[in-house]
């Protein structure tokens, strides 16, 4: 009878708990809903509703009622895309009289074939959501009070302008969102730039930043190389640090299909996940020891001569050095010592991957969220390069992204070190985008404190708290952070919660812009543990944002396919679209005109807003680096209407209006839309012509290094290329040298003169190089097994700052401390050494790691506000092995205190299970709303709180950041658990 997930003894108790909680907490919501339905009330009724003007939030109209002529209104079908992960599942929403009344599967979608997980199948609830933030609010005397939009925008902008005068624009921090559409994420970067700072970031920082940096530095682009669909062509699949069955459930459709066709499936994880339950081989490693395992595998590949020698010779730089390093350092005894896996198991993985090619590797947060995450992901790249699996259908590095548009927001959104399209923030990059924006570079420069600050990477979202708390003389910008915008981002997804609370209390201005109040609202309203930490001048505002179902726009799935969402319903309550809010704030801040100069303005609910299509056209005009240029709104919409014409395995349209295109024009889709590039299904694939989606590794690191050639060897090139050897990236000089310049039109020549393939706004260089000569605009080079510009050019294992193996620290020490890293001092060795001296591992002998549950997403406030999902997971818990539990007198379902070295303690249920090893504890990271044993319900705005609340694991996580990207360490820290 268990409704919840755990089996065995847990079932009975969980069922009991469920019935209790049904009685306790739910009737208010559910009864009202059913009451309204029964009494036939469909328009605003009841105390709460009357205040909400014209919306129909509680009208859960069934299709039956809708079909009743008395109810009236035609049923319209709107095609949209799920907002809960990066698979990109299409949804047909049935709408009547502006109310979302039904949801049908889209069997035509080549990505999901109609399939949904719990979140996708429950998505319609977001069109009703009673837990939503309904109107702008302000924190007054510890309580949230309703205010008008005008008052909110006036007060917020006045504060900002005041801070601009006293502290400068760098005192404001903008946390953007991977749940924004491409157009909104892009507009956000433009907005922040025009405000005059690089202090902006979003979820990608704490999700796949190490992947993006590590992978781009290895072979060119920081993205999933192939696609979920392409895994149907794989013969072996290695999942390491990915629990796809819970995090990307619909991807398993393709994975299990491949498995049934004979592909071998291997799962490597500290935890026996639901994905592991489907594997042919499961390998348990110690959390944070991925390099030892991966190089253990590569060791056996080299030892047995299973590497692809020709591929390595033609397409990989530095593999010989890597080989020497691995053969010396990762002998089976050392692998066993560090990651705990015996030789036979490692050998079996190596053999499976080498003898069942093409073989692919999949990774997620299990690899990325570490102090050496950048090295983990490169070790995975090296494994695939050794086997010649990159640029091959069925192979590839299938890096599953998290949020529905985290790929898009990474590509063109608010990143502290880059303008849209990975252009960076050097003067030339600013000039390029100023040209696209038709903004005056000199004016923009004056918006910043100085040109130096304009070209200095901002603080990351993982560290904004230190931007507030760190001593002023130690930070690499003039002011400390005084204001923070949480614009579609959860706070409980960042580590070091106790310090975050202190930082929030110290701010002068905190603005939450979100469809839900989010845990930020509750954390901000909760009194500080020490009253003297409270800042009496602090102002906190909550602004209700529309969801992606209440606007239109595009989103980039993990496989780089871009899908267009139609607007399903008008924004509920007083919510406004994010791009409208950006425009309205910009108006008040004095750069509204510049922000929307190139856009068609349209009437939206709450005011004028830029039309998403015209924002996308501007993106198309500027984003040449990664080929976001060919995906015009018209082409994307045509794909959405003709999904049935695309092949599920290859993603290519056979006939029909999109003939030859790959679904969603996966980037790079080079050139102008008129050039009709079909998109790139698998990156770096030399077996195809560049105009058919083929390619090769990118020439981004020069043509030689210390006298060694970095370009591809002769004969290695994309199919049909005029240049049959390696070549550098194209610019006007190279074009002239090759005698191709005159193939440009006069108009193109005028724009392309002095430019390269990335900055030529005419697209002429890309057109001539690709269409006329079959070459890749970014050159043809080797992938780098040695990334000389990273702290460890060859990936090295280093023990975490907080670990349970002090005996390994001397041999595998962490990095030295860094002084000014993304504007902040960052500690490594001093913390690791102190922990060693203090014998912290003795007090906290268990590894603490975290991960996903299928029912929830991210910080979880949105999904925990959806009763259809919340009912399935009602309490935060910690998974603990029976041995560890018995040693501590803990029984299944007991309340326990989980403590970490930060001093934090979490009160959660014990889930006693062999899913984790005896040295490891696991907590899901989606909970919030409990703070060290106390329910925070009173601190949420009245009537706008998630149905289910629980302890956030990140209240207790420890310090630690990746040495390249500032990714937070959340996957390996330590804890102690005791019966409560």
């Amino acid at each position, binding site marked *: *009878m268990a*409704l919840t*997930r*755990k*089996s065995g003894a847990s079932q009975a108790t969980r069922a009991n708990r*469920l*019935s209790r909680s*049904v*009685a306790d907490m*739910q009737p208010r919501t559910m009864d009202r*809903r*059913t009451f309204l*339905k*029964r009494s036939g009330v469909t328009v605003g009724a009841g105390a709460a509703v009357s205040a909400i003007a014209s919306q129909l939030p509680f009208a859960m109209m*069934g*299709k*039956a*009622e809708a*079909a009743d002529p008395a109810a009236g209104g035609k049923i319209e079908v709107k095609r949209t895309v799920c907002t809960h992960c990066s698979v990109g599942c299409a949804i047909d929403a049935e709408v009547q009289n502006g109310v979302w009344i*039904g949801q049908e*599967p889209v*069997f035509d979608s080549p990505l999901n074939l*109609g*399939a*949904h*997980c*719990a979140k*996708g*199948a*429950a998505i319609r*609830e977001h069109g009703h959501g009673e837990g939503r933030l309904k109107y702008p609010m302000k924190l007054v005397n510890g309580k949230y009070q309703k205010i008008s939009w005008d008052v909110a925008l006036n007060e917020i902008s006045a504060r900002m302008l005041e801070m601009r005068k006293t502290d400068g624009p760098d005192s404001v921090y903008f946390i953007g969102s991977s749940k924004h559409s491409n157009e909104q994420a892009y507009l956000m970067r433009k907005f922040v730039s025009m405000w005059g700072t690089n202090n902006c970031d979003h979820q990608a920082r704490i999700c796949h930043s190490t992947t993006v940096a590590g992978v781009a530095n290895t072979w060119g682009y920081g993205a999933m190389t192939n696609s979920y669909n392409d895994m149907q062509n794989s013969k072996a699949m290695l999942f390491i640090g990915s629990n796809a*069955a*819970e995090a990307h*459930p*619909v991807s*398993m*459709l393709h994975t*299990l299909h491949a498995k*049934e066709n004979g592909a071998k499936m291997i799962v490597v994880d500290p935890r*026996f996940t*639901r994905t592991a*339950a489907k*594997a*042919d*081989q*499961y*390998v*348990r490693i110690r959390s944070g020891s991925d390099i030892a395992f991966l190089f253990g595998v590569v060791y056996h590949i080299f030892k047995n001569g299973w590497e692809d020698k020709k591929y390595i010779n033609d397409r990989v730089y530095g593999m010989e050095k890597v080989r020497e390093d691995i053969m010396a350092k990762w002998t089976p005894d050392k692998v066993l010592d560090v990651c705990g896996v015996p030789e036979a*198991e490692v050998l*079996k993985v190596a053999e499976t991957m080498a003898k069942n090619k093409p073989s692919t590797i999949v990774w997620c947060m299990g690899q990325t969220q570490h102090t050496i995450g950048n090295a983990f992901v490169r070790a995975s790249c090296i494994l695939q390069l050794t086997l010649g699996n990159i640029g091959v259908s069925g192979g590839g590095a299938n890096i599953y992204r998290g949020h529905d548009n985290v790929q898009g927001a990474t590509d063109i959104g608010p990143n502290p070190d880059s303008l849209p399209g990975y252009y960076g923030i050097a003067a030339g990059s600013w000039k390029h985008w100023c040209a696209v924006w038709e903004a005056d570079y000199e004016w923009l420069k004056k918006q910043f404190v100085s040109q130096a600050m304009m070209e200095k990477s901002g603080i990351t979202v993982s560290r904004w708290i230190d931007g507030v708390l760190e001593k002023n003389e130690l930070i690499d910008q003039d002011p400390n952070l005084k204001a923070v915008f949480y614009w579609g981002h959860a706070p409980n997804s960042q580590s070091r919660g106790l310090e975050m609370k202190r930082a929030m209390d110290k701010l002068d201005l905190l603005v939450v812009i979100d469809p839900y109040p989010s845990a930020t609202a509750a954390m901000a309203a909760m009194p500080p543990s020490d009253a003297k930490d409270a800042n009496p001048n602090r102002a906190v505002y909550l602004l209700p944002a529309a969801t992606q179902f209440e606007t239109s726009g595009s989103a980039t799935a993990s496989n780089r396919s871009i899908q267009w969402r139609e607007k399903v319903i008008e924004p509920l309550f007083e919510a406004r679209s994010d791009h409208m809010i950006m425009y309205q704030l910009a108006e008040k801040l004095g750069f509204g005109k510049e922000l929307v100069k190139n856009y068609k303005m349209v009437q939206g609910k709450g005011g004028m807003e830029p039309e998403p299509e015209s924002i996308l056209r501007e993106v198309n005009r500027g984003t040449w680096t990664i080929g976001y240029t060919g995906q015009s709104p018209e082409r994307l919409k045509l794909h959405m209407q003709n999904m049935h014409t695309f092949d599920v395995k290859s993603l290519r349209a056979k006939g029909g209006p999109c003939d030859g295109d790959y679904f969603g024009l996966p980037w790079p889709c080079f050139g102008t839309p008129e050039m009709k590039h079909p998109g790139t299904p698998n990156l770096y694939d030399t077996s195809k012509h560049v105009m058919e989606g083929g390619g090769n590794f990118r020439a981004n690191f020069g043509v030689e290094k210390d006298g060694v050639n970095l370009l591809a060897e002769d004969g290695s090139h994309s199919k049909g290329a005029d240049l049959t050897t390696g070549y550098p990236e194209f610019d006007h000089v190279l074009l002239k040298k090759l005698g191709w310049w005159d193939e440009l039109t006069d108009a193109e020549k005028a724009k392309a003169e002095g430019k390269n393939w990335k900055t030529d706004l005419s697209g002429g260089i890309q057109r001539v190089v690709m269409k006329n000569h079959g070459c890749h605009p970014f050159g043809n080079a080797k992938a780098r097994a040695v990334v000389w510009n990273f702290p460890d050019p060859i990936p090295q294992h280093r023990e975490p700052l907080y670990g349970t193996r002090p005996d390994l620290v001397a041999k595998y020490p962490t990095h030295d401390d860094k002084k000014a890293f993304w504007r902040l001092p960052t500690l490594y060795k001093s913390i690791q050494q102190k922990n060693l001296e203090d014998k912290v591992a003795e007090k906290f002998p268990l590894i603490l790691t975290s991960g996903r549950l*299928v029912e929830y997403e991210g910080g979880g406030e949105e999904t925990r506000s959806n009763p*259809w*999902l919340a*009912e*399935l997971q009602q309490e935060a818990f910690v*998974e603990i092995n029976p041995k560890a539990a018995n040693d501590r007198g803990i029984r299944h379902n007991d309340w326990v205190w989980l403590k970490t070295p930060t001093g934090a303690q979490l009160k959660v249920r014990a889930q006693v*299970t*062999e*899913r984790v*090893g005896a040295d490891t504890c696991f907590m899901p990271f989606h909970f919030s709303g409990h703070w060290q044993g106390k329910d925070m319900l009173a601190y949420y705005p009245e009537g706008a709180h998630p149905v289910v609340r629980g302890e956030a694991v990140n209240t207790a996580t420890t310090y630690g950041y990746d040495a390249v990207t500032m990714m937070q360490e959340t996957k390996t820290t330590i804890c102690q658990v005791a019966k409560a």
Partner: protein
Amino acid sequence: MARMKFVCDSERCIECNGCVTACKNEHEVPWGVSRRRVVTLNDGVPGERSVSVACMHCTDAPCMAVCPVDCFYQTDEGVVLHDKDLCIGCGYCFYACPFGAPQFPQGGAFGMRGKMDKCTFCAGGPEADNSAEEFKKYGRNRLAEGKLPLCAEMCSTKALLGGDGQVLSDIIRDRVIKRGKGADMVGWGTAYGKEGGKS
């Protein structure tokens, strides 16, 4: 005439609960009522398998056999339905059902006066097809619209299938032939303290 059945392929079920929330969504099933749920065996250990369970729409349905007021009936397509106006909410069908399908809500549209609620194979009840009355008591009637149960239509891995038993058995037969053999899991032994890497 089709004979409607559900089947859940445990080789494919990943316990994502998509079927559960699809059902909640389609029929607006209140909190506390679970027409469908996913049961996991050997949770967290080798051999873990999940299976999605709801009313199995038995041919010789025990609930029908024991109901004291004879509120159950079977459609031409083999779907077992019941009449909530006749049902007295005694719970005897709960005794009889081998799958725990009958649900007894505390209140709300589906359980007025504590009556029984269960999976309808998305086929509504005795009221006129797709009438407001039918929706209030039983939820949507997808079969009358020419569609199949939404839980199966939305299943993330096509593990849960719902429809004509003949078609379903063809699909399952194809899968079994393709797989050729059962589970081939290596590595459990080491992870769980047994020698030889065999489970």
